[in-house]
């Protein structure tokens, strides 16, 4: 399975980063003339197969950052590169998992997973096999012919993950994918996500509200501060590659946690 899922990533050894932001700014024009400065001077790069997490208080521009990278929103100024190439709109290299599952209610689960493959006009039979494989991987085998409303929120979110992976993206973007889930489901989803990372070999950027989640999942954590949204700090997380839930109670984890909290609190009062 590992090989099937990693095909198309053969050029992963080239030296350029998976993606990078160069002096990216974003202004949202507004009716009353007071433009919202959502992002200011964003500069960072992410190397291949890295798992970066982005934390920051609500409204600091995390979703905007992700949408710019996905090509859904244009940056006001600056430059985004994907695999060393200037980004101009959405790219096949990128798979996105949205904050809410955004499944199409008139398509069953299998058909939902196949949406990106249909858009790309990929081979039907092959994509279908791949969709079954992915649904199996996210623990939803047997649900192929069910409809979205017959699934729980967490299951729908997993369909969203399978859909994001159907075209073998080399970059996976996730915007608070587990935000709507309870703490317990969330933890198990995080464990699944780490397993997934192993098997797909993609670069992952995950946006979250939760500091522990950011530390637990990330190779690096991008800490953002609000108004205007800018990168406060990028922390490398030096925890063992194989992460277990118990790591959350370790001293090192606690140190990272309080450090990030401090960095955020120095800017604004975070809950």
């Amino acid at each position, binding site marked *: 399975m590992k090989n099937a899922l990693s095909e198309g990533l053969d050029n992963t050894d080239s030296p350029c980063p998976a993606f990078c932001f160069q002096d990216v700014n974003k202004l949202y024009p507004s009716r009353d003339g007071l433009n919202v400065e959502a992002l200011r001077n964003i500069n960072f790069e992410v190397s291949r197969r890295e798992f970066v997490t982005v934390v920051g208080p609500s409204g600091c521009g995390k979703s905007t950052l992700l*949408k710019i990278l*996905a*090509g*859904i929103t244009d940056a006001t100024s600056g430059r985004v590169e994907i695999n060393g190439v200037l980004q101009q*709109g*959405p*790219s*096949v290299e*990128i798979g*996105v998992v*949205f904050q*809410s599952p*955004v499944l*199409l*209610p*008139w398509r069953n689960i299998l058909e939902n997973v196949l*949406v*990106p493959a*249909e*858009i*790309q006009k990929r081979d039907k039979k092959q994509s279908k096999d791949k969709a079954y494989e992915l649904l199996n991987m996210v623990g939803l085998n047997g649900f192929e012919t069910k*409809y979205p*409303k017959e699934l729980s929120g967490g299951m729908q979110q997993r369909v969203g993950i399978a859909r994001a992976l159907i*075209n073998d993206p080399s970059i996976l973007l996730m915007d608070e994918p587990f935000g709507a889930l309870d703490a317990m489901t969330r933890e198990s989803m995080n464990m699944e996500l780490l397993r997934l990372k192993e098997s797909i070999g993609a670069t992952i950027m995950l946006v979250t509200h939760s500091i522990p989640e950011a530390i637990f999942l990330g190779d690096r954590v991008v800490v953002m501060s609000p108004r205007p949204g800018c990168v406060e700090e990028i922390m490398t997380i030096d925890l063992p590659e194989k992460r277990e839930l118990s790591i959350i109670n370790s001293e090192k984890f606690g140190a990272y946690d309080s450090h990030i909290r401090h960095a955020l609190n120095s800017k604004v009062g975070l809950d």
Partner: protein
Amino acid sequence: MKKVTFNERDMMLRVGFFVFVIALWHFSVTLLDISPLVFPAPWGVVVSLYQGIASGEFLFHTGVTLYETLMGFVIGAIVALVLGGLIGQIRLLEKIFYPYIVAFQAMPKVAVAPLFVAWFGFGVTSKIIITATIVFFPILANTIVGLRSAPREQIEMMAAFTASPWQKFLMVRFPHALPYIFAGLDVGIVLAIIGAIVGEFVGAQAGLGYLILQRNFSMDITGVFAILIVLSAIGIGLHTIMKFIAKRTVFWSETSEDLRQ
């Protein structure tokens, strides 16, 4: 999804109420000694209904009215869907066309009907055109609203996966609009009968509307009541068929009922 539409007790209540209404009708008419020239008794209506059916008279006129209704509905719906599809997708077209469409809609079709009869004659053509114009607007309006109201996140999702505008239309906007379109069609099919009858009232040689006028002139009020029953049966039948098709097609929508204005 599954609603308990009626159980046995509901059914008994319904039948009971029906019997009560008919009884009330019967006794009011007989006790107050109302002339059948003003308000017929239920039994007379049933007899007239039977005679109409047995003689084949109803079959012929129903055929004519149903033909006008369905032809008008289909033509009006096709024009509305095509125009709605274009307007829903291209804003400029809305700016150009919509004022005229609204102005046309503001005109009472009943007032325009004599013109159509003058232009297209006493045959079925004028009725079909009147019906089509009446059916047109609700379907058009619903199609436009449906196409426009696709959730932003679904469109963004499609964009993120590199969908073209045409793919966004086919895979999201159109299926999203279907419940709205069916709500419009459902309103349209009921209006279509009105259109056909209005057309026949203005001037016709056949059809249930024509028959109503004839019987009215000859003071056959009982016979008019019988036709009214046929008309509402047609209305209920068409509405039921429409709902059945809608349920099959937009099975995912739980709110297609609520979308009807």
